[in-house]
């Protein structure tokens, strides 16, 4: 009986391993090592590393289970260096192997190796890389930063020292892009300024690690022999052993499986001569492992998706318990259609632009649609209540492994307040599911936004960087000025929020106080200039600051307040920004508000029932509202140096309409008394009272505030009606 059980167990094990083996073997691992110079002699710093570092990486890969046939080496003139150090001799480390170098360094060979890997080249014994395979890539040599492009892309080139040829960042990107879509690439780049390469080679399936930032040099040190710091520590981390055999504790969780992330972390922590940088677009680094003995990395490679957070790799559900999933980088709003990528809070009363980034993590191209929508926060997970910001956007021919940014105008922005924005993606074979919780579906993204209004009485908050553009520690003066007040001109309240730990010499012309949020600099009404002297900033250091401009309630419509902020060093201006806040035309603001009110009452009528809301929606829908909208182009134009945008003027007097809305207030009150419970109704009663008062006095600001209060007070009702359960 025992024998039969044992046999049965063996058969089960064999069947299981037969089932599992193809999965483990499905992914092949290859390596390309390029040491872009040639060592002539041992023990010469910034020279002998060409061989020592190459040998270190090669031995690491062999220890990790790569075979000699899996590793392709470009080095010097094509001949191994014969080191006097036993630890760096091919014959000693790899008995039976005569040479590890496959090709001499030449730009054509660098290009060819990726081309051959993409197509296969039997003549050179190079296999064809398949989608999903893993390619380890290491480059070592000299690199240079060639400044930045107008779009902020760092420009870079590397030198092949022993031929004098150069390879630019775009050429590197082209070479790597030859690999099949979905090839998982793990790149290590050891040159000065290598951080400048990352923005060119980042990708959906790439984890890249540079030896330094774009504006830094990389250095060597003497370990067992001379090594570039980065290669030494990265190689030791990935091998879990230094070249002379000392254990390197890089397997941080000590589970016996070293991930790329653990290797990166170890290298980053141990390189002290520069700051290493990791580019990991989808946060894949925790998944792949170098060791060939380990199963293939399970990296999602199917369909279209947008990220819920920066490291979201497309897994469903995402890791929403450990990440803020509603502030993701793939959905944002801009005031202008300017291709900017920094999110801005939607501006009430003007056309905003919704941007979404869509990724095809699949291995073939596809067509997709992106539905962009907004909702009340209470309807965050109820797709039926999401309202489109624009018609769906068609995305044609989204290539394999391609990321594309789309945008669409958002014309009808709701009243100031908190809302949710959503992207819903659909592609053939990869449709969005019915779950409104964005974290459950990689076809959906949600970000929470605050619609803001900068009309009279509202605060305009702007973030900017206090920056030291120099390469050395510098004392910077922050100068905040406003033009002398014209007769009748508004005097806005101006505050600057600075980091709490900011080190500075003193303040003149204003006051500095410390709050829980940070240091707050105030520009008194009587002052036109305030200076924070001697702010200590490190080389190229940037600190975030926030300017708040609050227009006085008595400011007249159309009036403008201009605040100028600049950084100065020894009295010389090094950088600055101008903030202009304008009081918008009242009629346009009200027209926009009424449009939103119409939408609100329509929803309320449908969800209610509320006969008054239905009447209100009909009245508001039947009125031809002025086409003009509050356009904050003027403020933005000053920010961005564009031409001043014309502010349209409303042609229709909407006061009578306001009065009709006011007349229906008692009916609305009765409806809400029915729709809300006893605890909820008092807030609504107060809001309706405000509405009535605003109509009576004709105070537009009060009317808008009352509208917002009504919407807020109605939320419990909508929550009950719309939220699940």
């Amino acid at each position, binding site marked *: 009986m025992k024998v039969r059980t044992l046999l049965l167990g063996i058969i089960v094990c064999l069947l299981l391993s037969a089932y599992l083996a193809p999965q483990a073997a499905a992914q092949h691992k290859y390596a390309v090592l390029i040491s872009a110079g040639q060592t*002539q002699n041992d023990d010469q710093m910034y020279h002998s590393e060409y061989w020592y570092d190459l040998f270190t990486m090669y031995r690491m890969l062999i220890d990790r289970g790569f075979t000699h046939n899996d590793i392709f080496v470009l080095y010097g003139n094509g001949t191994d260096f014969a080191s006097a150090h036993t630890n760096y001799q091919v014959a000693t480390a790899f008995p039976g192997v005569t040479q590890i170098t496959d090709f001499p360094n030449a730009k054509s060979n660098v290009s060819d190796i990726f081309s051959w890997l993409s197509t296969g080249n039997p003549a050179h014994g190079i296999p064809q890389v398949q989608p999903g395979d893993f390619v380890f890539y290491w480059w070592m040599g000299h690199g240079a930063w060639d400044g930045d492009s107008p779009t902020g892309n760092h420009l870079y080139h590397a030198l092949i020292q022993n031929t004098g040829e150069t390879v630019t960042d775009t050429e590197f990107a082209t070479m790597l892009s030859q690999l099949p879509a979905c090839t998982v690439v793990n790149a290590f780049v050891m040159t000065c300024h290598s951080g400048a390469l990352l923005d060119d080679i980042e990708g959906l399936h790439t984890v890249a690690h540079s030896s330094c930032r774009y504006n830094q040099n990389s250095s060597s040190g003497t370990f067992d022999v001379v090594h570039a710091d980065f290669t030494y520590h990265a190689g030791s981390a990935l091998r879990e052993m230094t070249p002379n055999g000392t254990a390197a504790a890089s397997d941080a969780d000590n589970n016996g499986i070293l991930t790329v992330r653990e290797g990166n972390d170890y290298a980053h922590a141990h390189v002290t001569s520069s700051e290493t940088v990791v580019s990991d677009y989808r946060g894949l680094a925790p998944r792949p492992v170098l060791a060939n003995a380990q199963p293939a990395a399970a990296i999602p490679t199917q369909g279209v998706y947008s990220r819920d957070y920066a490291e979201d790799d497309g897994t469903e559900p995402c890791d929403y318990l450990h990440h803020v999933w509603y502030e993701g980088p793939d959905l944002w709003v801009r005031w202008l259609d300017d291709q900017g990528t920094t999110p801005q809070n939607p501006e009430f009363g003007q056309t905003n632009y919704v941007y979404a980034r869509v990724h095809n993590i699949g291995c073939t191209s596809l067509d997709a649609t992106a539905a962009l929508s907004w909702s009340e926060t209470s309807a965050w997970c109820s797709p039926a209540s999401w309202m489109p910001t624009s018609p769906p956007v068609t995305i044609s021919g989204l290539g394999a492994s391609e990321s594309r940014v789309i945008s669409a105008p958002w014309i009808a922005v709701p009243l100031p307040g908190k809302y949710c924005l959503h992207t819903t993606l659909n592609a053939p074979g990869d449709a969005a599911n019915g779950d409104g919780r964005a974290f459950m579906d990689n076809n959906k993204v949600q970000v929470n936004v605050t619609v803001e209004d900068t009309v009279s009485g509202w605060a305009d908050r702007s973030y900017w960087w206090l920056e030291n553009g120099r390469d050395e520690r510098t004392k910077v003066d922050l100068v905040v000025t406003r033009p002398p007040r014209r007769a009748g001109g508004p005097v806005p309240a101006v505050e600057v929020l600075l980091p709490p730990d900011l080190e500075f010499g003193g303040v003149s012309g204003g006051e500095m106080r410390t709050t829980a949020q940070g240091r707050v600099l105030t520009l008194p009404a009587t002052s036109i200039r305030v200076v924070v002297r001697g702010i200590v900033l490190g080389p190229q250091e940037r600190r975030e600051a926030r300017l708040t401009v609050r227009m006085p309630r008595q400011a007249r419509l159309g009036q403008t307040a201009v605040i100028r902020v600049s950084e100065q060093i020894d009295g010389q201006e090094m950088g600055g920004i101008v903030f202009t806040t304008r009081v918008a035309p009242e009629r346009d603001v009200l027209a926009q508000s009424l449009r939103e009110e119409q939408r609100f009452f329509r929803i309320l009528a449908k969800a209610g029932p509320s006969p008054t809301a239905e009447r209100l929606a009909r009245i508001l829908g039947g009125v031809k509202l002025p086409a003009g909208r509050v356009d904050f182009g003027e403020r933005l134009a000053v920010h961005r140096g564009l031409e001043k945008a014309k502010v349209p003027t409303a042609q229709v007097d909407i006061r009578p309409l306001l009065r009709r809305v006011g007349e229906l207030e008692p009916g609305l009150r009765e409806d809400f008394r029915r729709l809300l419970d006893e605890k909820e109704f008092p807030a609504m009663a107060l809001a309706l009272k405000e509405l009535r008062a605003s109509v009576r006095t004709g105070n537009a600001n009060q009317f808008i505030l009352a509208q917002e209060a009504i919407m807020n007070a109605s939320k419990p009702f909508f929550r009950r009606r719309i939220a699940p359960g």
Partner: protein
Amino acid sequence: MAVLLAVLAMPGAFAATAPRVPEARPIASLPIPAARQGLTAVEGHLWTIDTRTGVLLKIRASDGKTVATLRSPVAKPRALAWDGKALWCAGARGDRLYRIDPKEGRLLKSLPAPKLKASSSTTLEALAWDGGHLWVGIAAGWSSSLIQVDPESGKVLQSIFAEGYPRALASDGKSLWMANYNEGKSPSMLARWTILKDATKMSLTHTFVACLPGRDPSGLTWDGKGLWYADRGMKAFQKLRLPAEPMREGGPA
């Protein structure tokens, strides 16, 4: 016999290794106190820097006697070069290059020193005169560079990677020599380039020509007949005889 067999059995025991670079032999030695930095030869004399005081010293090459002193135009002078008529001097911060009258120490000219585009720390380590232009050695990790500068305008004419830590430079007008510093942990080696107008072609002439006698080079100069070498670890300037040139040329095979 057993020992021989055992040795033969050791893998790699007879692996061919790169030929060793021969040593540069001292043929003359000039005793000096320690704390000397920078070296440039002028008609039977050597100019150097007393690093404790920052004073420039003119030393007679025949007996080591100090025959003249000059105040440095920079607080912490680091490197010297002689252009045939005047001295060039620069500090480690490498802000400017100063040309000074060797008799009175009068400042004749100053130029902005070449800079590397990096936020990392860099130091100006060495100067040399190739007969028409200045060479400036800047230590900056893997970006360490040798930069040829127009002495009239200060314009950078060309720049090559130093392939080492450029502690000291010298030139005879045709070649550019560099003493490579290896953190004091390995002997310094003398590298040579043929001076060419094309930086790429010049880079490919890089070769190591000799092992230097010290590990902490501080000066190198060509006196018309041979190279003088200074080292922080040695209390002497040494005139060197270079081995037959070169072991091998750099560049593609």
